[in-house]
């Protein structure tokens, strides 16, 4: 379970998170939507401790992420994250990209790590690209590789930060299909996305962020069918145009 309690976070004078409360249970898929600058991406990087927070706390299975005593490297094995920019390791082949962390962080033997990597890469449809360098892959393929790389650590939670935003339109579908598949398999996921149809499709709950505040959260039917907050209505009507 991920518990986010009264989290506040500023970059200099700019307060990007103004007291966020959100609890995500095991197996749940929560999508965060909202305009740019609403703080949704920042929240994700706070959840796995890549960004410090100013106040409040975030608990992952009871472990406080930002406590001094917390071993973040250990905690991050549980929480995978995939970013808008896929961030492939360009000097490693696709297979090596995926086996690196299991070998170095989990201390897995090469053979075992490769077995897992091949399985994950096949899963995301890259089983025939094992020896290829990322530079030779399309954006969509690199993004799916990044997903396989995160999954190879057998995380219990996955965070997706606008993973289709930097992709050419024709490549968005293949990545969304991969995410859909993960959701159906029961992975606990928090996704920040601009793909409204997708959010409606896969989410258990949809949260709408506006200027650092979670203005509204509810099942997708309610958020998309009968939004309560005026800003939600405004945002959704603007995205439909």
């Amino acid at each position: 379970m991920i518990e986010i309690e009264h989290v506040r976070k500023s970059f200099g004078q700019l307060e990007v998170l103004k007291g966020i409360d959100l609890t995500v249970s095991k197996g749940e898929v929560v999508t965060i939507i909202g305009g740019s600058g609403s703080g949704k991406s920042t929240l994700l990087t706070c959840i796995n401790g890549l960004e410090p927070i100013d106040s409040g706390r975030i608990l992952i299975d009871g472990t406080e992420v930002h406590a001094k005593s917390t071993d973040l490297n250990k905690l991050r094995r549980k929480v995978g994250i995939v970013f808008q920019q896929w961030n492939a390791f360009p000097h490693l082949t696709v297979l090596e990209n995926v086996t690196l962390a299991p070998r170095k962080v989990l201390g897995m033997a090469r053979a075992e790590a490769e077995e897992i990597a091949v399985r994950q890469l096949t899963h995301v449809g890259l089983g025939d690209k094992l020896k290829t360098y990322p530079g030779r892959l399309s954006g969509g393929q690199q993004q799916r590789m990044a997903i396989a790389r995160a999954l190879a650590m057998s995380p219990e939670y996955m965070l997706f930060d606008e993973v289709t935003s930097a992709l050419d339109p024709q490549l968005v579908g293949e990545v969304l299909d991969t995410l859909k598949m993960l959701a159906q398999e029961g992975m606990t996921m928090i996704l920040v996305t601009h793909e409204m149809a997708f959010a409606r499709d896969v989410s258990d709950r949809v949260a709408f962020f506006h200027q650092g505040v979670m203005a509204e959260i509810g099942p997708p039917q309610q958020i998309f069918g009968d939004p309560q907050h005026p800003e939600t209505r405004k945002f959704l009507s603007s995205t439909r145009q």
Partner: protein
Amino acid sequence: MFDTALTTADFVFLAKGAGMTIVVTIISVIAGTVLGIVFGVIRYQLGAIWAAPLIFVLDIFRSIPLLIQLVLANAFMGTILRLNMSGFTVACIVLSMYTAAYCAEIVRGGIEAVPATTRRAARSLGMSWGQDMREIVLPLATRVALPSWIGLALGVMKDSALVYVVQVTELLRSTQILITRLQEPLLLLMICGAFYFVISFPLARFGGYLEKRWSND
């Protein structure tokens, strides 16, 4: 074609000088690169303010002519520290520091060229700072820094000609000795130049080979 007094023994003498140039260069470049990586990482990690003392020391080694450094270091080791150090040791120490000072900046530039987002991805997979450095940052920085590093290594090889001031007889010094004796400066300098070329060429080609190989990534 040439009417020369040059004998096989003289040739062997030159080759020995070339051997000394190679040995001094290899020791200095290896030691200087290892130190340069350490200094470069510290310099990057601490930032310009906290690393100021280090930057200052490295600047000294970069801005004072090597010839002066060699003479002063030799005098310092012998007269002040009263260490019974050979000219060869002094030469290797000074050239290593000289190399390290340049290498540190090359390393820092290479590290800065690695995108922060790539490092963030590595850390998000649970990799520690050290693992990120070893597995991601340094390999990628190496690719960026290689051409400058090859230039540095070739420069150090040629600069090593100056170690004659601490009584080390390397290639150029050997040539000068022969010139004094045989009075055939042009021929001897051509041979000396050819020796330098033969030493440099493999390194330059090796750099080119690595660049080409890595560009396939």
